[in-house]
C-alpha cells in the first residue's frame, strides 16, 4: 500500500464511520465510482474497526511496570551471575528477585537459588544484604536453607547464593495431613526459629511461602531477607517503613512500625499455626487488637488457648520464647496441662477431672458422691491473665488480679496440695473478699466469680459457691448482653453447682439451656457442646435416668474424640463414665471394654501415675467388681488407693472413695471384718469433711450398714439404714436413686423376719429401680425377689396361722 492509497482508503473509511453502524457497509457498497481495490480495503478496515474497539486501549507501559521491566543487563535466563548461569525466575520478593541458577563445574551440576536485590544503589538494601549474608552464614540448622555464597552483579546489585529447596509450601503440604502430623511439622519449624533466636536472629517474615517442605518431609525456612540481627547497631536501626513485609503474617507491632523482637516471630508462628490447623487466618480487627478464630473447623480448647497466647496483641503477653510455644504444643500432644492458661487450680483440676460412680451391687451399694474436683472445664478455664477485657482495667490492676489468682489458685497442683481442706477454704474466702475491689469491671468480675464459685463447688461448699455463680450468670445475662460461649459457661457452672447441691433436675435443666445457647452459636459440633453433653449426662445419671445419661455420654464422647483425639484425658473420662453407666444398666461386657479403654489411655499418657489414671482404674475396678472378678478388682483398686493417697492425701474425698471401694472388694470376698474396718474409716473421714447428715456420708453409712447386715448384726445396722434413707429422701426427694437404701432396708427387714415392714420398701424399690434401670435389670429383678419373698412369707404366715 502506498501513502496515497492509504489516504484514499481512510477518507472513504472516515466518511463511513460518520454514519450509524448499520448504514456504513451499505453506504460503502454504493460508492461504485471508486477503485474496487480501494473499496475492498475500506470494507476490510471497516470490519477491523468493528472489532478494534478495545484494541491498544490499555497502554503497554502499565503491564511493563507491573511485572518488572527487563532492561539491558538484566538477569534473564542464560545470563550469568558470577560462576552461576540463570535458569529461570523463581519469584519476586519485597527487595528483589529469586532466581534459579546452576553452577556447572567439571564434575557436578548444582542447582542454587540466587536472591538478587533490585536496587543496586540503595545503601539500605546493601546493608540489609550484607546483614543477611552474615546472619545466614552464621546459621547452620537442618531446617534452615543454607547460604553458599554472595557478591554483587555487574550493575552493583548484591546477591546471595542459597541452597535451592525443592518442595512445597508448608500449608499445601499440610492439606489432608492429620493434626498430629501438622503439629509435628510445625514443631520442626519452631525448633529452627528457636535456633535462629538463640543466634540473635529474628526472621520477621515467617509465612507459608517461606517454609518449604522438601522431598524428605523436612521443612526448610527460607528468606531471612528482612531479618535483623538483634543487639547490633545495624539491626537496631531498621525501621518498619523500609522493611518489606507480608501483611497477612505480620504482627500488630510490625504493622504499626514499632520496635521488633523475637515476639514478633512468635506472633507470626501463631498465625502460621492457625493457618495450618484451620486452613484460614484469624479475623484481625483493625489495629490488630483482637484475634478471633474464624476457621471452619473449631479447635480443641488447648489449641485455642495456645493460639490465643501466641497471638496476644501485646508482645509482653505472648509466649516469651519459641520454646514456650513448642512446650505447650508438646504438652497438648501428650495430653498434659498446657501453660497457655495461667496455672489455675480449676484448669488443672479440669485436666484431672473425672466422675466417681457409686458402685452398684446388690449386697453392698456404695454411694460416694462426686465431690469431685469436678472443675472440668476446659472452657471455663479460659485465660485469665490474658483476659481480653484487659483494656477495661487499668493494666496494673489487671495484673494484680492475675497475680492474685495465680497465687491463689496456683497452689493446688497435685503434690503441692495442702494437707487439709481448711487452707483451701481460707484461700477461697480471701479470694472472695478480694472480689469486692472489682465492682467496676463486670467481665473480669464475672470470670473471677465463675472461678471462685466453681472452686468452692469442687471443694464441697456449694452454699458458698451459689451466690458467686448466680451473680456471675446475672452479669453475663444482663450486663454483657449474653455473649453466647460465656453465657453458656455461666449457665453450665450453675448447673454443675445445682448438681453438687443434689438438685439434679435443675442441673439437667440448666445444662439443656446451655446446650441450646451453644448450639445456636456454634451449631451442633463444638467441644463446648460435647462438654455440656457430658455434664447433662452426669445430672441425668444422678436422676437415675440411666439410658438418657448413656446416650448423652456417647454424644459427648463422640465430640471429644473428634476434637481432642482418642488419647486425651477428657476422652478417657468420658469412656470411664460410659463404662460405669453401662455397668449400672447391666451391660457388663460394655462396661469392662470401656473401662479398659479408659485405663489404657491414661496409662499411656501418664505411665508414672496420675490422678486421671486413678480415675479410670477406679472405674475399671468397679466394673471388675461387678463382674465378680474380685482378685483383679482388688489389685486394681489397691492401686487406686495408692495413687489417690499419693496425689490427694488420705483425707481427700477421692482417697476415701477408693478406700471405700476396697472395702467393697473385701466384703465380696467375704473378708467382712476388714471391710467393716474400711467402711468405718471412710465414714469417720466423711463425717469430718461433710457432717453426719450429708449424703456423701450417707452413702458410706449405707455401706457400713450393708456389711453389718452381712454379719447378721441387724440391730446395729437398722438405725444406720433408716438414717441413710432419711437423708436420701430429704436431699433428693424426687430421685429414683433412693431405691438403693430402700432395697437395702427391705432386705434387712426381710432378713430380720419382718416381711410386713419390708414389703412397702421393697415395692417402692422395685418401682423406682424399674423406672431408672428398666424391668430386666438384675437390680430390679433382685428387688422383685424381695417383694416375692415378703409376699410369700406373709402369705405363709397367714396360711400357717389359718392352719393352726
Amino acid at each position, binding site marked *: *500500500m*502506498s*501513502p496515497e492509497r*492509504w*489516504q484514499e482508503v*481512510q477518507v472513504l*473509511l*472516515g466518511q463511513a*464511520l460518520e454514519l450509524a453502524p448499520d448504514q456504513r457497509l451499505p453506504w460503502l457498497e454504493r460508492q461504485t465510482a471508486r477503485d474496487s*481495490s480501494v473499496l*475492498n*480495503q475500506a*470494507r*476490510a*478496515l*471497516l*470490519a*477491523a*474497526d468493528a*472489532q*478494534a474497539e*478495545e*484494541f*491498544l*486501549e*490499555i*497502554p*503497554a*507501559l*502499565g*503491564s*511493563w*511496570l*507491573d*511485572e*518488572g*521491566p*527487563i*532492561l*539491558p543487563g*538484566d538477569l*534473564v*535466563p*542464560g545470563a550469568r551471575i558470577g560462576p552461576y548461569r540463570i535458569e*529461570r*525466575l523463581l519469584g519476586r520478593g519485597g527487595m528483589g528477585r529469586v532466581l534459579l541458577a546452576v553452577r556447572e563445574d567439571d564434575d557436578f551440576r548444582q542447582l542454587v537459588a540466587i536472591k538478587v536485590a*533490585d*536496587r543496586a544503589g540503595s545503601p539500605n538494601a546493601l546493608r540489609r544484604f550484607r546483614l543477611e549474608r552474615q546472619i545466614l552464614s552464621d546459621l547452620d540448622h537442618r531446617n534452615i536453607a543454607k547460604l553458599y555464597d554472595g557478591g554483587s552483579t555487574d550493575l552493583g546489585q548484591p546477591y546471595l547464593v542459597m541452597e535451592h529447596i525443592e518442595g512445597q509450601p508448608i500449608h499445601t503440604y499440610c492439606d489432608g495431613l492429620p493434626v498430629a502430623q501438622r503439629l509435628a511439622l510445625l514443631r520442626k519449624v519452631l525448633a529452627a526459629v528457636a535456633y535462629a533466636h538463640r543466634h540473635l536472629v529474628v526472621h520477621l517474615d515467617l509465612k507459608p511461602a517461606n517454609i518449604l517442605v522438601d522431598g524428605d518431609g523436612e521443612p526448610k525456612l527460607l528468606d531471612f531477607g528482612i531479618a535483623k540481627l538483634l543487639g547490633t547497631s545495624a539491626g537496631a536501626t531498621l525501621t518498619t517503613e523500609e522493611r518489606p513485609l507480608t501483611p497477612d503474617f505480620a504482627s500488630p507491632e510490625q504493622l504499626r512500625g514499632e520496635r521488633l523482637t523475637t515476639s514478633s516471630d512468635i506472633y507470626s508462628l501463631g498465625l502460621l499455626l492457625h493457618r495450618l490447623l484451620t486452613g484460614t487466618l484469624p479475623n484481625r480487627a483493625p489495629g490488630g487488637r483482637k484475634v478471633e478464630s474464624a476457621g471452619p473447623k473449631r479447635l480443641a480448647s488447648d489449641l485455642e488457648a495456645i493460639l490465643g497466647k501466641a497471638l496476644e496483641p501485646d508482645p509482653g503477653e505472648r509466649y516469651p520464647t519459641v520454646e514456650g510455644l513448642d512446650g505447650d504444643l508438646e504438652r497438648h500432644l501428650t495430653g498434659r496441662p498446657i501453660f497457655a492458661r495461667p496455672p489455675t487450680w480449676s484448669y488443672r483440676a479440669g485436666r484431672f477431672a473425672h466422675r466417681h460412680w457409686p458402685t452398684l451391687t446388690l449386697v453392698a451399694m456404695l454411694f460416694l458422691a462426686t465431690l469431685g474436683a469436678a472443675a472440668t472445664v476446659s472452657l471455663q478455664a479460659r485465660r485469665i491473665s490474658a483476659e481480653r477485657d484487659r483494656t477495661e482495667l487499668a493494666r496494673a490492676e489487671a495484673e494484680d488480679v492475675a497475680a492474685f489468682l495465680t497465687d491463689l489458685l496456683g497452689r493446688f497442683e497435685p503434690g503441692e496440695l495442702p494437707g487439709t481442706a481448711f487452707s483451701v477454704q481460707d484461700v477461697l474466702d480471701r479470694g472472695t473478699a478480694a472480689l469486692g475491689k472489682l465492682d467496676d469491671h463486670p467481665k473480669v468480675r464475672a470470670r473471677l466469680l465463675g472461678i471462685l464459685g466453681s472452686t468452692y463447688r469442687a471443694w464441697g461448699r456449694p452454699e458458698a459457691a451459689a451466690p458467686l455463680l448466680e451473680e456471675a450468670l446475672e452479669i453475663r445475662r444482663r450486663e454483657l448482653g449474653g455473649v453466647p460461649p460465656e453465657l453458656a459457661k455461666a449457665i453450665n457452672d450453675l448447673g454443675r453447682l445445682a448438681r453438687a447441691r443434689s438438685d439434679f433436675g435443675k442441673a439437667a435443666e440448666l445444662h439443656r439451656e446451655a446446650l441450646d445457647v451453644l448450639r445456636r452459636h456454634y451449631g451442633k459440633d463444638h467441644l463446648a457442646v460435647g462438654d455440656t453433653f457430658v455434664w447433662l449426662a452426669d445430672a441425668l445419671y444422678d436422676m437415675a435416668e440411666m439410658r438418657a445419661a448413656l446416650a448423652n455420654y456417647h454424644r459427648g464422647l463422640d465430640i471429644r474424640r473428634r476434637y481432642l483425639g482418642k488419647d486425651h484425658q477428657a476422652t478417657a473420662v468420658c469412656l470411664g463414665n460410659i463404662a460405669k453407666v453401662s455397668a449400672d444398666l447391666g451391660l457388663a461386657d460394655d462396661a469392662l471394654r470401656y473401662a479398659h479403654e479408659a485405663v489404657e489411655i491414661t496409662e499411656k499418657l501418664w505411665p508414672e501415675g496420675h490422678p486421671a489414671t486413678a480415675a479410670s482404674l477406679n472405674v475399671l475396678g468397679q466394673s471388675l467388681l461387678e463382674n465378680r472378678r474380685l482378685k483383679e478388682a482388688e489389685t486394681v483398686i489397691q492401686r487406686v488407693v495408692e495413687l489417690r493417697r499419693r496425689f490427694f492425701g488420705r483425707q481427700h474425698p477421692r482417697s476415701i472413695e477408693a478406700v471405700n471401694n476396697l472395702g467393697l472388694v473385701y466384703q465380696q470376698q467375704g473378708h467382712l471384718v476388714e471391710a467393716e474396718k474400711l467402711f468405718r474409716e471412710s465414714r469417720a473421714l466423711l463425717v469430718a469433711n461433710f457432717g453426719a447428715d450429708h449424703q456423701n456420708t450417707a452413702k458410706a453409712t449405707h455401706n457400713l450398714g450393708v456389711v453389718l447386715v452381712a454379719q447378721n448384726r441387724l440391730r446395729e445396722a437398722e438405725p444406720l439404714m433408716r438414717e441413710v434413707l432419711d437423708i436420701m429422701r430429704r436431699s433428693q426427694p424426687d430421685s429414683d436413686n433412693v431405691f438403693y437404701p430402700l432395697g437395702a432396708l427391705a432386705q434387712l427387714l426381710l432378713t430380720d423376719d419382718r416381711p410386713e415392714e419390708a414389703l412397702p420398701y421393697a415395692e417402692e424399690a422395685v418401682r423406682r429401680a424399674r423406672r431408672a434401670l428398666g424391668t430386666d435389670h438384675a437390680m430390679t429383678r433382685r428387688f422383685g425377689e424381695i417383694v416375692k419373698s415378703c409376699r410369700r412369707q406373709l402369705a405363709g404366715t397367714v396360711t400357717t396361722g389359718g392352719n393352726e
Partner: protein
Amino acid sequence: METREKGDITTLLGAWQRGDPQASDRLARLIYPELRKIARGLMSVERADHTLQPTALIHEAYLRLVQQKRMLWQDRHQFFAISARIIQRILVDHARRRLACKRGGRIERVALAEVRDLAAQRPDLLVELDEALDTLEKLDPTQATIVRAKFFAGLTGVEIARATGLSPATVKRQWRLAKAWLFHELNHREGGLPDRVP
C-alpha cells in the same frame, strides 16, 4: 557512562530530530536508567493498588532530565514524543526478552479481538506491532506518532493534541483509523481473514 553522556543530551536530541539514526540509540541508553529508576520508584509507591499512571513516569523523567541536567527544552511536548519512542523501544525489547524466557513454554494465543491488554496477554504481538508501526510510519507519520504516544507512553488524547498541535477531535479520529489499520494488519499476520473479498 551515564555521566559521560550527560552533557550530550541536547545535542543528541537535536541530532535525533534531524533523523540521525545513531542519536536514538544513544538517547535511549541515556534515558533508560532514568526511566527505570523512576518506574521502580513509582511502582514501589503505588504498588499497593497497582494503578500506576504511565504519564506520571514521563513527567517525572522530564522533570529530572530537564531540571536536574539544566536542559532548556523549548517544548516539553516534544520530550513526550521522544520519550514515547524510547519507551516503545524499551517495551518491545522487553517483550522480546520475555518471549525468549518463555521459549519452550507455550504462550496462550488469545484471539486478537479478545485481547484487552496487549502487552500483558500477547507480548509476541508487541514485536509485530512494532514492525507494523514502522510500516504505518511510512504511510502516515502522524498516526504512528499518535499510536506511540497513546499506546506505548500512555499519554492521553489531550496531551497528544498539545504535543502535536492537532485538535483533540483530529487526534481521536486519527487514532481510530490507525487502530483499524493496525488491527487489520496484525490480524492478517495472525492468519486472520484475507483483506480482499474475492
